[in-house]
């Protein structure tokens, strides 16, 4: 069953076309990783999946139902099946209520467990998230916890409602480096229990780690420009933009890192998102752009194991060398 589906979805935020025609079907229990740089529309995609943004074109479907269909009112059960973990754990938790209070509230509100068992359930989920002794953490307010601990609380809150899907938008970017892996591991464990994840990040290293074995989408200026198995995309990128991103990441080895040559992009700067370029959005920066790229937008098409939006993907394989 498709938990959430975007069909040709466009999202307009003020003057910015934040998402331009994205198709995505999220199956039960999978991890989908969404990567791209700031402003590429990856957080917008997350909010669209959460049903928080009404599309200007296209549809958002939950379990086959268009949730923005005229007159449709989403039942709570469907609403609760999709939960979120935000980047800023400080801003997403209530600063004046204890962790125990804020985790109990949704259980009570939705009558998910008998009243007498609410507290036990809260303590159980805190323990599961490694916040032990649980009653100690339940009595704390957010500022008394570290960033890593707060993010565990956010994950606990999302998991508490037994969702089918959790959208995690940069969940470890604000967490100290040495504590990130442990939180990603918790997410892997929740995934193994059957919860699907949409993991949104700019960090390709954690994308590979958390998303291993799953699918990845690469976004650029509101569009998906490449998608496919995580490992295939990162080991063998077809789109020149993904190639440039990977070339820009030095290996974590000083001997090799000092030798890397970045891909010679024609421009460093991301174009103005209010006026995306004609044709292929990447053409003003692409070192291989041809006349056709300026006029004809490439569609996402299947090339070997992945999908890529580039007219010349086959020709760019291996060491790209185009006839002019």
């Amino acid at each position, binding site marked *: 069953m498709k938990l959430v589906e975007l069909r040709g979805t466009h999202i307009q935020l003020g003057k910015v076309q934040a998402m331009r025609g994205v198709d995505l079907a999220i199956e039960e229990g999978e991890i989908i990783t969404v990567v791209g740089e700031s402003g590429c529309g990856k957080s917008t995609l997350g909010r669209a999946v959460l049903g928080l943004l009404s599309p200007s074109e296209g549809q958002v479907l939950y379990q086959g139902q268009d949730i923005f269909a005229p007159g449709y009112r989403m039942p709570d059960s469907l609403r609760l099946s999709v939960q979120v973990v935000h980047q800023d754990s400080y801003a997403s938790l209530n600063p004046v209520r204890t962790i125990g209070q804020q985790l109990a509230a949704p259980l009570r509100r939705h009558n998910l467990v008998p009243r007498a068992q609410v507290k036990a359930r809260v303590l159980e989920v805190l323990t599961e998230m490694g916040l032990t002794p649980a009653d100690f953490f339940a009595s704390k307010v957010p500022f008394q916890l570290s960033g890593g601990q707060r993010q565990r609380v956010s994950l606990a809150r999302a998991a508490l409602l037994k969702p089918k899907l959790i959208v995690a938008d940069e969940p470890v970017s604000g967490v100290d480096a040495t504590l*990130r892996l442990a939180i990603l591991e918790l997410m892997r464990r929740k995934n193994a229990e059957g919860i699907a994840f949409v993991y949104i990040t700019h960090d390709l290293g954690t*994308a*590979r780690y958390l998303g291993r074995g799953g699918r990845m989408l690469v976004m650029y200026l509101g569009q998906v420009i490449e998608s496919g198995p995580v490992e295939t995309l990162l080991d063998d990128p077809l789109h020149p933009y993904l190639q440039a991103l990977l070339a*820009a990441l030095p*290996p974590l080895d000083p001997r090799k890192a000092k030798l890397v040559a970045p891909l010679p992009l024609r421009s*460093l700067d991301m174009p103005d998102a209010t006026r995306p370029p004609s044709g292929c959005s990447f053409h003003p920066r692409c070192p291989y752009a041809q006349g056709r790229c300026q006029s004809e937008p490439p569609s996402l098409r299947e090339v070997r194991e992945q999908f890529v939006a580039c007219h010349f993907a086959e020709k760019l394989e291996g060491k790209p060398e185009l006839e002019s």
Partner: protein
Amino acid sequence: MLSIQNLSIDYRVPGGAMSVLRDVSLDFEPGKVTALIGESGSGKTTLTGAVLGLLASNARILGGRVSWKGENLLEASPERLRRFRWRQASVVFQAAQGAWNPTLSIGRQMLDCCRDHGVEAGRERMERLLRQVRLDPARVASSYPHQLSGGMRQRALIAMALMLDPELLILDEPTTALDLITQSYIFDILADIHRERELTAILVTHDLAAVARLADRVAVLYAGTVCELAEAESVFENPRHPYSQILLRSAPDVRGDLRLTATGDGKPPDLRQRPPGCIFASRCPERIELCLESEPQLGSEMVACHRRKP
């Protein structure tokens, strides 16, 4: 050239003092890039603040020396420090954090710094430096900061830091908050500049990619102490201190190197009341009794860990 000896600094906080640097000793080799790495709160920024005489007003220096060619900068007059800054040591801050004055053009700010230090007409030099950071001087010098992209502002800041031809360059998170492609471009520029001028540089960062790309030597900081100092290659290949090992192996590599260790939260130390013994003991997987009792010294092995001593 620059050497820090037994430096300890506290910050006054409500209800006491927080010990941010404790007995730190570090030599900076001329012509080399030394990276200071560590998590937020490890004391990296306080350390460079002490070198430049730019500590927050609640900082209290408890002891130690910051020695610049034999002179103790901690005892230098404000006027001496004012001349030291920029003429001899300059800083590239994070451009995103308001390092530029928004009401003056880039060119005006660059030339102002020459004038204030009594250096003759810098226009030609400014144009050359802007070209060196691959910016178009005609356009950039007359622009205001908001008219440039984040990457361009950061590159202009690098040019600004080189205006007075300093001997020491401090790079304080020079690529944080920039996108990957711009970061890589800035690494390139910095590597070129370093090669050409043989500058001595301090790179403050939590980004291991930046360290791998630019650093010759690495000092790993944890809770205000140096736990390890080594050549960059050896830190990446064979980190010795348990904290360095955790730090280096907690960054998943995009190329799929999975030599990773997930660690539990542990309990970070309370810096208002430093525990006796090793400051990392509360989180250390290799802790023994001795670690809770006696504080390990860096020693000649340059690793502050009882378990790594012969």
